């Protein structure tokens, strides 16, 4: 007999490898990583205390725009060093982003699992609540909530966390709906596994990868929302340096001392762009359908 040679009918697909084969991911990591390191090491690398005022050196321009090298990025109205404040400001933004992510993903995953696995009434109720929340104008509703309950870092994180769960729940739900019918879940059910065990041991681990994907979409939104709220004066308390508050500080001087607003805003752009670039690649690598589109 002639040996059958089995050839693949589809062309060999380019192996995605790790995300580090993608240039944009490396670029994104450099952008995000440098902001992250700056924020983490702010206490050591900052030339000045971020709150230290020096009224004799107020509104000094940056070194490259005619200022002295003492304040590389210039100073604000109270003579505080902008570079030091930008470095420290990253701490709040990133802290808020991480904490809000923890709340969003926990609540969203839990409700998405329940909604998808139990179905029926539970599913209806949870999805309707998600619809209702999505109909609220995000930022304004957040503003109102923070204004009513009082502006504090805790409230900010709490409300940003609550605001973001529907996105997670919807995607987790749709994953669960398809996982539920798979053979390995069926097998576990036949073997007598309880609902809780199936959810915990068989469905949850398979949902976790898509959480990473949603996180890369949601996190830039959280950072921008925190910055907007702080810009409007209802985010972090005024004595804490955050990028949004700093942009607002510079508003009255935009015509005369542009650096006060420009640098903290650039820090936001670099951070968010970095995460977006990383996120795009992670999505490509994890989701074969979107990889085909590249």
């Amino acid at each position, binding site marked *: 007999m002639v040996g059958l040679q089995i050839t693949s009918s589809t062309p060999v697909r380019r192996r995605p490898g790790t995300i580090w084969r993608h240039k*944009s991911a490396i670029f994104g990591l450099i952008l995000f990583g440098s902001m992250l390191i700056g924020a983490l090491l702010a206490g050591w690398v900052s030339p000045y205390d971020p709150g230290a005022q020096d009224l004799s050196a107020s509104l000094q321009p940056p070194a490259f725009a005619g200022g002295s090298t003492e304040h590389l990025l210039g100073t604000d109205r109270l003579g505080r060093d902008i570079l030091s404040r930008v470095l420290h400001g990253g701490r709040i933004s990133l802290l808020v982003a991480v904490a809000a992510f923890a709340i969003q993903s926990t609540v969203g995953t839990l409700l998405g699992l329940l909604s998808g696995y139990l179905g029926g009434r539970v599913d209806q109720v949870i999805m*309707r*609540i998600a*619809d*209702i*929340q*999505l*109909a*609220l*104008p*995000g*930022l*304004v*509703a957040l*503003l*109102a*909530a923070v*204004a*009513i*309950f009082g502006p504090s870092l805790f409230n900010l994180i709490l409300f940003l966390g609550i605001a973001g769960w529907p996105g997670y729940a919807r995607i987790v739900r749709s994953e669960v709906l398809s996982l539920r019918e798979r053979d390995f879940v069926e097998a576990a059910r036949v073997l007598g596994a309880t609902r809780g065990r199936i959810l915990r041991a068989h469905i949850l681990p398979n949902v976790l990868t898509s959480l990473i994907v949603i996180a890369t979409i949601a996190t*830039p939104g959280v950072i*921008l929302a925190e*910055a*907007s709220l702080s*810009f*409007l*004066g*209802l985010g972090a308390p005024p004595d804490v340096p955050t990028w*949004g508050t700093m*942009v607002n500080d*510079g*508003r009255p001087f*935009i*015509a005369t001392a*542009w650096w006060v*607003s*420009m640098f903290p*805003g650039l820090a*936001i*752009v670099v951070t*968010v*762009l970095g995460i*977006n*670039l990383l996120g*795009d690649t992670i999505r490509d690598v994890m989701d074969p359908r*979107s990889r*085909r*589109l*590249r």
Partner: protein
Amino acid sequence: MGAYIARRLGYSIITLIGVATILFFLLQATGDPALVYLPQRASAADVEAFREAHGFNDPILVQYARFITNFLTGDFGESLNFGRPALGLVMEFVPATVSLALAATIIAVVVGVPLGILAAVKRGTAADTLLMTGALTGLSIPDFWLGLMLILVFGVELGWFPISGRGGLDHLVLPAVTVGVAMAGSLARLLRSNLIDALGQDYIRTARAMGIRWSKIVAKHALKNASLPSLTSFALQVALILTGVFVVEVVFAYPGMGRLVINAINQRDFAVVQTGIFLAGVAYVLLNLVVDVVYTYLDPRIRLVAD
């Protein structure tokens, strides 16, 4: 089809009642709703009088029923600062916000559509990478900061456009560009990926094999099929990005609904805040409804499933 629209309409009303419910419980969660409506300097006697007059001493279910009924009949209470019905007040500011949103959408379409098509057709080239990085950057810029930078460059340095208020079309340029940049970026990305999807379909290969010009294939066959899913996603994103309009209004001192509501938040004029949030909810729900119905109408496959 009729049954489908009726069901979607039902969902919309449930969603709006839900929004009103959230606003109600947000108030209750503060401990004393009367205090939220009153200025902070109000005396204890004033507070008690207000409570009695507005029924805050009634059982909570009675209060809830009244709250929802009032909302659905268009009674949103009185603005503390303006001393007149909140609904009429907010409605006066709606046209300014709608014209800003429309101008931003026009900019997004004029910029985003050609860039998205170009990137899809040139997929994998340096031009594609450049365009998509640009689109992503547009999505990464905080709108309030972009507004300030535009004010600095085009208002202060070049003096081309007015930097605040509302007047002729020139007042609309900077705020509309500020909002439009993120929308354009998002639209270009959506259109590119949907167009690449469409270009990979069998009917495109058939058209090519038949010798139809490539430009005609893209314009007539691929674009037509790519625009529908792009439109749906874009419409939903518009709703999200539009909350950005509110902040941009503050930056440009543009007298729209967003600035009114944000000022009301700072001045604790809660009737105006509730009205603004509820109307934004109505706009979102209506937009969703229209998109769904139009989509069903345009795509026969969905119509079959829906019936």
